[in-house]
């Protein structure tokens, strides 16, 4: 999922970096407004957990592996604003310290995962939580579906970036079809890990979960 340097041309990467900056700025503003001292350590824990989770590639199909994105997981646990910041920190550390994801591609990656992955996953979560009438189970179902959908959404975002500025001559539809179908599979793993993690915290300390707001006790 981490785009290396060279896949996508510099103007498109720069454009994405601008969008990503706007997204992170919005997240900082929102996180500041919503910051609850009690939740602060959980934000840190979620960030490090996502970093660790992204290190674990699991086989998803023959010759393909996938790892956690963590956008929906983070959004349900600490809210979309803090989640967006946490994912961004993870991506910056990965690119700078571990050469995972290109430096010129950082804006593309932040846009796909910290903005699209987080907000797409959280949007689906909100819809499902509402559809299942704001119960604790609704929070869990929303987390599952939000996590599942966030991965193909981020893959779609890559396909759009590639269609605009890919350094290759492939039909946009070919890239999209391949990216989408592969990432549907990876989304299943995302849904499993997210459901287990959110489920464990809902069981022990539901009061700490951001997504439990508005849920009948």
């Amino acid at each position, binding site marked *: 999922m981490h785009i290396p340097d060279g896949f996508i041309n510099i103007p498109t990467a720069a454009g994405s970096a601008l969008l990503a900056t706007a997204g992170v700025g919005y997240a900082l503003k929102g996180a*500041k407004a919503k910051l609850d*001292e009690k939740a602060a350590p959980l934000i*840190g824990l979620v960030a490090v957990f996502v*970093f*660790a989770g992204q290190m674990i590639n699991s086989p998803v199909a023959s010759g*393909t*592996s996938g790892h956690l994105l963590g956008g929906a997981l983070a959004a349900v646990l600490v809210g979309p604003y803090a989640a967006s910041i946490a994912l961004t*920190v993870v991506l910056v550390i990965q690119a700078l310290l571990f050469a995972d994801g290109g*430096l010129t591609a950082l804006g593309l990656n932040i846009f796909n995962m910290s903005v699209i992955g987080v907000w797409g996953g959280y949007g689906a979560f909100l819809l499902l939580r509402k559809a299942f009438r704001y119960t604790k189970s609704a929070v869990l179902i929303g987390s599952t579906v939000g996590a599942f959908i966030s991965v193909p959404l981020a893959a779609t975002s890559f396909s759009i970036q590639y269609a605009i500025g890919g350094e290759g001559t492939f039909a946009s539809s070919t890239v999209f079809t391949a990216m989408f179908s592969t990432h549907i*599979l990876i989304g299943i793993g995302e849904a499993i890990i997210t459901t287990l993690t959110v489920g464990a915290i809902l069981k022990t300390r539901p009061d700490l979960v951001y997504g439990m707001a508005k849920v009948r006790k």
Partner: protein
Amino acid sequence: MNTKRLYIIGFAITLLIAGVFSFYASSSPDGLEKVAIDLGFIDTAKDSAVSGSALADYGVQGVENERLSVGIAGIVGVLATGLVMYVIVRLLGKSKN
């Protein structure tokens, strides 16, 4: 479960994943790499400017033992992520008050 205990357990699990389990991660190409290989645009990838850094590709330069190398890299990554996140949250909290 009290809050402190939850955080300690959560952090311990995180360190275990990054420091120990990471060694067992699949080395197959990820979704994007696989698509790039299959369609044939993997060659357009360029090395990152920091690809020669001491921790590049989740290994510590000079540490021969693979298990130790990825484990240390993982723990350094967790600590770095935690530190940056802590500073940001503190600054946000300060600017709020």
